[in-house]
Structure formats: structure tokens, C-alpha cells
């Protein structure tokens, strides 16, 4: 019954456009979703190398054996490590504090260590861990204690041979700020012989875990229920804020770009549903005459909508799943790497999005169907009443809001995008209404010109809706084409070719001048040296801090760790104050603090709160005066907490800096470390490459989204043209009967659509510029300077595109014999 009804309704119009719009939307969401997931997995897998695993569990106490047992039982790979500080003694009696890391034979689970036969030599991938009775030591240790590779050193009760220089440990970067002493790596099985670890030893016990997504999820769920105090969890997200930041931005942009397709398609669905409801009014009037209840009528049409939505969403899902393979192959070709296999869940999500969009955008017009005036319709005097503005607005807002939240996963961003979308819709509809009204007021001497103008001015209701629909489509197209270039270029510019790729820590204040001179001599430009002061957060508004009292693991970790504080007069380049204000010149002596927003939010710290840090046994209290958004992927030196010089003056400190070192200056590193043996140099080239790679992936994907926006725009166009096709075909027939030539008819239609498209394009360009500027600022963290091309392209492209497409869509009407058009109307 339902299927027969759908087949019948299909021919009367409306449903095919709903199906087309839905298929396009689901196809876009599915393909972008699957692609996004594949890129995310690939990037996380790459980023996991900086953690040495997919997940790390850490404890100050010996790791409970059931943690590893559980991971193994879930088919995951497991590696155990112990890390602790100790003193090393050379044969000539030199001692040095080192950071010992004892690893088992499975280490590392992701990535690989690199070692060399001489300190600061070219590293080779180490296929194994140090041999029994051997250690690998950081290059710095060799120069500090003046030994060569192969020398023997004593660690605890055992003597070891320093068999190789440790150039890179895959999981070293995440903890480098905390590692003041040079690293020494040894076999875990050798550890008992040293006698260094006792139950009261200060050590970090780690279990690294790696494996399938499913296994990791199960393991994480088990950990959630495993009640053992002191277990700390670290994932890639925690390890690399720069990668996480880039991935989050990429996901946000791609997700929101694909949602723009859904919203454009939503406009098409709404207009098509209006048309469908109008076409069904006579059927409904007759059903009412024959005794059908309002409830039954509503059920019938909702069921038809849902069935069409299900089928078209499924088709869109399948097409999207196939389409992402093409997208992925493009990305793989461009990046020269293979993406992980596709997951099925983005397709299911896409289908769910289709159902939600169908109901959210298509239901309002159908709700009026059971309430038609039977007599009015049968007399031909009335049609279906337009849907209630409040119901429509409510449904559309709820649907858009829900979908945006699902994609953004963040309330603030959702509210931003919702607010922007609402502003966009209102601006386009209201702007369209005003401009069409103004156009309608233009006096034209020739009636044929007046016909074009008045057609726009007269259909203010449907005209402004068409401007809205076309405007949404054009704005989305401009956002993902013209503005895409500006946005992605701007994002790429945040990590230009000279982005710092080396971090230098543990610089002593007395080395400051010499180091600056070294930089000048080596022609290296450094962004400056920042003080780094270590302190523990002990009180919040006078109340002692209890890390275990915080609900999230991230907050617990923040609260428990020792902070690297800095003081600065100026706001660092890659930082932006989002709340409160940066200190003025007259406040430098005050005790003020500026916090990174995410850090402050997770710890529940607000502007005006007092934070007390214990630095070298002294408690210092400052008041939070601003919150900052930090572009972690800028690779500049950044801090969670910055203080006024007045708060931290006189506290013991080291210095930190970052700088760019070109590949051809590799020997500079060796000279640097020889001249300043106590400093520690870190290479972050691989991280920068990963962020650049992510931006490139986004660039490929966005071109694909552009295509979908175009298809969604076509669906909107068809829906909009269909809505006024009856009147247009009647007018065309009358003009034809009165002697109008084909050329004149085409021209009249083209001019009308071109004017409509031009108006929509102008408004869309304005909206695209405003939205992109906000997106650049809020999501990508830079200030956008849009070019003029967006205006020209919006207006001219809109006029030409909509003019041609609208005329083409009415091709059949214009070519048909006039009598046929008159009879059909």
C-alpha cells in the first residue's frame, strides 16, 4: 500500500527531489566520514609512534599484573617498562644523574628506536633492545662524563657496557620537558641485578599496549571499571597536543564541510516537501471526503517520507562508501602512503543522518496536510497552508543543532556554528526578501522587462526561499572553493617552511649570552629564550589541591604533575586571549597568571581564581587574569601557565627555546651540544611533517566535498524550480500564444533566474566571507584576509550558474507545445 502510494506520488513530483537531496547528503557524510576516520587512524598510528604504543598505563607503584593479563587476553600487544632516576659512575669515578629506562623485549610497540655507533651520529633503526649487560645512552651523557661508546659504567650494583648512543627513543618526546637528566636504556631483565628498585623507590612503571581499535576500546572500558588508584592513562591525544590540535581542526573542518552539504540538501528537502504537500492536497481532500481521519492521513504521508528516506539514505550510504575509496586513493597517491582499511560505522552514521534530515527538514510541510480545507481545495480556491513558522524553525534548529553537535562534539563550537547558520539563514532569507522587493519596485518601460522584474517582486515568498536555498548552496560552494584556498593556505602558513623544528631545553641562565652568540654565528634565528620554572600546583583559591578529586583522568594528570611555568611581558605569537585581558605595562609587577583554556576548563579554574604553586619549597600565589587559546601546532614554545615577571622573579629557572635548523646544517647540532653539553636538543621534524600531511589530506577531501555541495545545490535548484514550474509553464504558454519567440522566452527565464542567482550570490559571498573569517579565527587560529574574487565569483557565478541551470531545468516547459502547457495547468 505504502509502496504503491510512493510509486504514484513519485510521478507527481516532490519525492524524487527529496530522494536526490537525501542521497547526496548521505553520500557526502558517509564518504567524508569514512575518509576522515581512515585519515585519523593513519595519523594516530603515525602519532602513536611518539608514544611508542596506542595506549600507555603508568603508575608510581608496581603495575598490577592483571593489567597486562587483561590486555593480552584481549589480543593486544603488551610491553613493560620501568623508569627512574639514578646515578651512573664511570671507571674514572665521574658521576652523573641519569634517567634510566628499563624495557622488555617487546619495546617499542609502535615506531622504533634509533641508535648510532658514536654520539650524535646518524641514527639507525634499532631492531632490538640493548643486549644483556649493555646500556644505550643519550649522546649527551657521553660528552658530559667524557666516555666513548663501548666504555663500561656502573649502575647500582652492576656494571654495563655503553654499547651504542641512543639517538631517538620513539616515546621520548612526550616526556622530554620532564627529563632533565640524560637517558640510559637497559633491559628490564637486567634491572633486578642492579638492586636499584625497591618497594620505596621513586619510579614510574609503564605498560604499553597496542592493537586493534576494538581491542583497545574493550581494554579502555575494562580500565574504567578497574578500580586501582594511581593508574594513569595516556593516549596519542595526551602525548601530542600538536598532532591532536591539527587532527581536531581537520576533523572539525571536514565534518562541518560535509554538514554544510546536509544543510544545503536540507533546504532542498524542505522546498521539495512543500511542493509535494501542495501536489497531494487534492488527494488529501478526497481522502477526507471518503472518511479518512487526520491521524491516518498524517501517518500515511509520514510513512511514505520515512520509506523514501530509508531507501535513498541507504543508496547514498552505499555510494558514499564506494566514493570514499576514490577519495582515499587520491589522498594515498598525493601522500605516497597507504591508509588503513575503511570502517563500516561512518556509513551507518550517514544513513542515520539521512533519516534525521528527512524528518527534520521534510516533516513540517507534511504536518499541514491533514488540516487542509477540503471545500477550499475542491473548489480550487485554497491550497495547503504554509507550515507553521515556529514548528518549521523548531524542527530545523533541532535537526541542524543535533547534527552539528554530533559532528563538532563540542557545545561551544555547536553554538557558534548554530548561531552562524541561523544568522546565515535569516540574512539570506531577509536579505533576499528586501532585495527582491526592491527589484520589484524598479520601473521598466517595456512590459516584457517588467514581466521579468515583477516575476521576482511578486513571488516574494517563494523567491526569498529560493534566494535562501541558492544562497546556502553558493555560500557553501564559496566556503569550500575560494575560501578553502584562503583557509588552508592560512592554516598552512601557521607552519611555514621556517617553522621551528628543534627544541632546546635545560639551558642555564648563564649560558644565555653564549647561546645567542652561537645562534648568530651559525646564522640561526631563534624566537628567543623563555624562562622555564618548575613548580607544583598546591592550592586552588586557598584550598589544597587533591588530584583524585577531579572527575577526568586528564584533570587528575594536570593536577598531579609538576608544571613548567614561565613568565612573559608580551603575549606569545601563537597565543590568543579568549577571556579576560593580557597584562598591561603597569601590571608587570603584579602577581597575575594566564592559563590555556582547555587546561583551565578541565581543572575548573576561572578568571579571578587564585592559584598557588610550590616552587623550590616556596609557595607563590597568583590571580588568573586571562585565558588563552594556544596554537599547539605552531611549534613555538608554549606553556599552559604564564605568569607576570613580578610573580616568578628570583625563582630558579632554566631556559627553553625553539628554532629552525635546515637539513643541510646537521653538523650544527653536534657543535651546539659539544659547546653546551648540559643542554638537551630535540628534533620535531617528524611532527611538523605529520601536521603538514594532515593539512594536505584535508585539502584533498575538501575538493571532494565541493562536488557534493554542487550536487546538493543542484537538488535545491531542481526543488526551487519545481516549486514555480507550474506558473512558469503557464506564463510561457500564454506568451507563446501571444506571439513570443523562443529566444525571448529563454531570455526572460534566464534573466529572472540570473537576477535571483545574482542576489543569492551577493548575499552568499557576504555570508561566506563572514563565516570563513570566524572559522579561521575560532577553528584554525589565524586572521583571514579574504580576496575580492569571492565577491565577483559569488555574484557573477551565482547569476550565470543559476541563470543557466534554471533555464535548463525549464527546458522541457519552454519547448513543449503551448496547448500542452495550458491543458496541464
Amino acid at each position, binding site marked *: 500500500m505504502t509502496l504503491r502510494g510512493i510509486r504514484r506520488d513519485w510521478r507527481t513530483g516532490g519525492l524524487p527531489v527529496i530522494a536526490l537531496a537525501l542521497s547526496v547528503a548521505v553520500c557526502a557524510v558517509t564518504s567524508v566520514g569514512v575518509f576522515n576516520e581512515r585519515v585519523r587512524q593513519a595519523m594516530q598510528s603515525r602519532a602513536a609512534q611518539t608514544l611508542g604504543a596506542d595506549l600507555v598505563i603508568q603508575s608510581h607503584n608496581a603495575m598490577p599484573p592483571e593489567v597486562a593479563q587483561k590486555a593480552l587476553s584481549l589480543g593486544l600487544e603488551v610491553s613493560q617498562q620501568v623508569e627512574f632516576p639514578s646515578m651512573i659512575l664511570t671507571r674514572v669515578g665521574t658521576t652523573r644523574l641519569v634517567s634510566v629506562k628499563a624495557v622488555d623485549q617487546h619495546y617499542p610497540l609502535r615506531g622504533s628506536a634509533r641508535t648510532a655507533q658514536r654520539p650524535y651520529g646518524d641514527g639507525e633503526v634499532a631492531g632490538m633492545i640493548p643486549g644483556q649487560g649493555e646500556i644505550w645512552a643519550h649522546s649527551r651523557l657521553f660528552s658530559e662524563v667524557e666516555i666513548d661508546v663501548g666504555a663500561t659504567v656502573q649502575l647500582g650494583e652492576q656494571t654495563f657496557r655503553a654499547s651504542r648512543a641512543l639517538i631517538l627513543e620513539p616515546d621520548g618526546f612526550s616526556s622530554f620537558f620532564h627529563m632533565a637528566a640524560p637517558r640510559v636504556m637497559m633491559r628490564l631483565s637486567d634491572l633486578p641485578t642492579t638492586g636499584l628498585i625497591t618497594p620505596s623507590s621513586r619510579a614510574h612503571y609503564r605498560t604499553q599496549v597496542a592493537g586493534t581499535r576494538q581491542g583497545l576500546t574493550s581494554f579502555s572500558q575494562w580500565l574504567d571499571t578497574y578500580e586501582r588508584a594511581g593508574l594513569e592513562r595516556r593516549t596519542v591525544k595526551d602525548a601530542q597536543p600538536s598532532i591532536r590540535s591539527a587532527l581536531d581542526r581537520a576533523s572539525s573542518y571536514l565534518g562541518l564541510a560535509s554538514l554544510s552539504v546536509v544543510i544545503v540538501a536540507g533546504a532542498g528537502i524542505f522546498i521539495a516537501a512543500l511542493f509535494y504537500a501542495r501536489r497531494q492536497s487534492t488527494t488529501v481532500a478526497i481522502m477526507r471526503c471518503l472518511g479518512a481521519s487526520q491521524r491516518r492521513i498524517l501517518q500515511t504521508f509520514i510513512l511514505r517520507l520515512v520509506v523514501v528516506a530509508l531507501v535513498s539514505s541507504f543508496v547514498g550510504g552505499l555510494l558514499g562508501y564506494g566514493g570514499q575509496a576514490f577519495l582515499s586513493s587520491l589522498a594515498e597517491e598525493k601522500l605516497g602512503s597507504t591508509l588503513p582499511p575503511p570502517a563500516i560505522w561512518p556509513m551507518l552514521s550517514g544513513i542515520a543522518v539521512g533519516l534525521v534530515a528527512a524528518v527534520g527538514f521534510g516533516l513540517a510541510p507534511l504536518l499541514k496536510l491533514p488540516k487542509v480545507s477540503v471545500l477550499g481545495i475542491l473548489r480550487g480556491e485554497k491550497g495547503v497552508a504554509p507550515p507553521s513558522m515556529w514548528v518549521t524553525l523548531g524542527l530545523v534548529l533541532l535537526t541542524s543543532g543535533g547534527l552539528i553537535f554530533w559532528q563538532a562534539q563540542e557545545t561551544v563550537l555547536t553554538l557558534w556554528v548554530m548561531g552562524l547558520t541561523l544568522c546565515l539563514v535569516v540574512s539570506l532569507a531577509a536579505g533576499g526578501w528586501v532585495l527582491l522587493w526592491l527589484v520589484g519596485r524598479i520601473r521598466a518601460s517595456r512590459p*516584457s522587462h517588467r*514581466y521579468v522584474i515583477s516575476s521576482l517582486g511578486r513571488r516574494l515568498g517563494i523567491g526569498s526561499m529560493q534566494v535562501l536555498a541558492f544562497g546556502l548552496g553558493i555560500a557553501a560552494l564559496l566556503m569550500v572553493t575560494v575560501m578553502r584556498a584562503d583557509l588552508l593556505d592560512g592554516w598552512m602558513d601557521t607552519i611555514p617552511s621556517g617553522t621551528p623544528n628543534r627544541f632546546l631545553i635545560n639551558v642555564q641562565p648563564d649560558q644565555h649570552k653564549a647561546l645567542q652568540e652561537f645562534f648568530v654565528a651559525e646564522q640561526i634565528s631563534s624566537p628567543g629564550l623563555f624562562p622555564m620554572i618548575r613548580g607544583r600546583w598546591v592550592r586552588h583559591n586557598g584550598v589544597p589541591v587533591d588530584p583524585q578529586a577531579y572527575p577526568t583522568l586528564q584533570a587528575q594528570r594536570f593536577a598531579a604533575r609538576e608544571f613548567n611555568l614561565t613568565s612573559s611581558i608580551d603575549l606569545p605569537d601563537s597565543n590568543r586571549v579568549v577571556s579576560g585581558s593580557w597584562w598591561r605595562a603597569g601590571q608587570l609587577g603584579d602577581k597575575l597568571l594566564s592559563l590555556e583554556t582547555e587546561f583551565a576548563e578541565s581543572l575548573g579554574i576561572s578568571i579571578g581564581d587564585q592559584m598557588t604553586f610550590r616552587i623550590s619549597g616556596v609557595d607563590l600565589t597568583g590571580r588568573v587574569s586571562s585565558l588563552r587559546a594556544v596554537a599547539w601546532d605552531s611549534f613555538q614554545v608554549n606553556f599552559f601557565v604564564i605568569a607576570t615577571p613580578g610573580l616568578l622573579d628570583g625563582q630558579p629557572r632554566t631556559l627553553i627555546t625553539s628554532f629552525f635548523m635546515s637539513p643541510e646544517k646537521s653538523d650544527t647540532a653536534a657543535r651546539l651540544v659539544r659547546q653546551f653539553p648540559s643542554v638537551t636538543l630535540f628534533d620535531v621534524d617528524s611532527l611538523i611533517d605529520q601536521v603538514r600531511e594532515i593539512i594536505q589530506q584535508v585539502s584533498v577531501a575538501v575538493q571532494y566535498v565541493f562536488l557534493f555541495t554542487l550536487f546538493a545545490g543542484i537538488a535545491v535548484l531542481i526543488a526551487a524550480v519545481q516549486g514555480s514550474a507550474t506558473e512558469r509553464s503557464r506564463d510561457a504558454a*500564454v506568451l507563446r500564444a501571444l*506571439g513570443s519567440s523562443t529566444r525571448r522566452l529563454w531570455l526572460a527565464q534566464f534573466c529572472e533566474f540570473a537576477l535571483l542567482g545574482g542576489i543569492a550570490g551577493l548575499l552568499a559571498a557576504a555570508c561566506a566571507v563572514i563565516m570563513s573569517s570566524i572559522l579561521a579565527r575560532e577553528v584554525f587560529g589565524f586572521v583571514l584576509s579574504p580576496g575580492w574574487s569571492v565577491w565577483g565569483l559569488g555574484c557573477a557565478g551565482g547569476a550565470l550558474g543559476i541563470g543557466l541551470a534554471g533555464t535548463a531545468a525549464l527546458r522541457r516547459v519552454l519547448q513543449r507545445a503551448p*496547448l500542452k502547457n495550458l491543458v496541464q495547468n
Partner: protein
Amino acid sequence: MEPIVTANNLSRQVKTADGELTILDDIELSVMPGDAVAITGPSGSGKSTLLGLLAGLEDPSRGSIRLLGHELSELNQDEKAALRAGNVGFVFQAFYLLNGLTAIENVEIALELAGRDHQREAAGELLERVGLAERMNHYPPQLSGGEQQRVALARAFAVNPRVLFADEPTGNLDTASSELVADLFFDLRLQYGSALLLVTHDSTLAARCDRILTLGAGGRLQS
């Protein structure tokens, strides 16, 4: 004198689910200048189709039509439209005014299409003639059915047509409006001397024509 409209051996078939259906069969017709011919017949007999074919608004399945000395089958759509412009007037049951134009603009556009620009005054005079002097700047949806049909009459006669095709011109009107429109219609026809082909159910309206033809079963025309 050459006839204004002639139809020879004119047939029209349409395809239906049950096969081909003959609407008009072997129609022979000739209308001389100034003639008024009424075509009557039961609903669905093909009267409106015949009118549309004679005016070149659709093509016949077979046979020939000569309109104003031109064989329609030899003309393309644009040539047919150019022939109608300035020579042919139409009055439809459903008025078919352009809703985006005011009453006077609806009349003016017919003149513009006939190649006569800037004829606002002439259009205004015609509207005055049909009693719509006060409604010239109103849009069709703001006018009653009778008023709309009077605008349609003004539009049809504005170009001083040599032939007028009228399809149930009073079919959508109440009795009072119907009589008013019918009187205006025939008065104007006399004034302009146009030939008339009128499709109607209304026997009194048909009786005001010179000849009455009836379309009977099987799509055949009888005198």
C-alpha cells in the same frame, strides 16, 4: 477572398494506455474574414483541441491547416508565434493573464509582442472601453473573474486581430458577469471586424455567431 482559417482532412490522435484514441477525425473547416463560427459539442469531444490546432498551439496528427494564408505544417514554432503576434487574439476560459503584470501591462505586452512598443495610451483606452479605467494598475489576483476576463478581452483586441480564438470565454463567470463579457466581446468583434472561432457550451452565445458547428462522437464536425 481567401479564407482566414482552413482545415483539411484534419485529425488528431493521442496515445493512451488502451491504445490510440482519435479525438478529431477528418475535420474540414473554412472561416472567411469577419465570419463568426461557434463550435459546440459535448465535454471531451475535442473542441478546445481543435481550437488549439487551428491557432497553431499544437500540431495535428494528420491533415493541413492554413492560417492567414500560411500552411502551419511548414512553419516552425517561432514562425507560428510570429504569425500570431499582431494577427491573432485569444480569450480563454481560465483568462490566462500574466499575474506578474498589472491589467494595463497585460494589454501592453500583447502590443509589444506585435512589435508595437510604447502603446500604454492605446492599452489604457481599451481598458477604459471594457470598463476597467479604475483598475488598470491592479494585478490579476486583485481582480474578480469578470474583470480578469475583460482584461483578457482588451488584450485580445489590442492588436486589432484578424482572427479571434475564444475558448469558453464565459465558462468561468457568473450569469451577470457572463452577460457583460459576452456583450463586450461581440461589440468589440463588430468594432474590429475580426473573424471569430468560438468554442462554447452556451447555446445563447453560440446563437450570436454566424455559423454553428458541432463536434460529435468520433471527433467529426457537423454543421
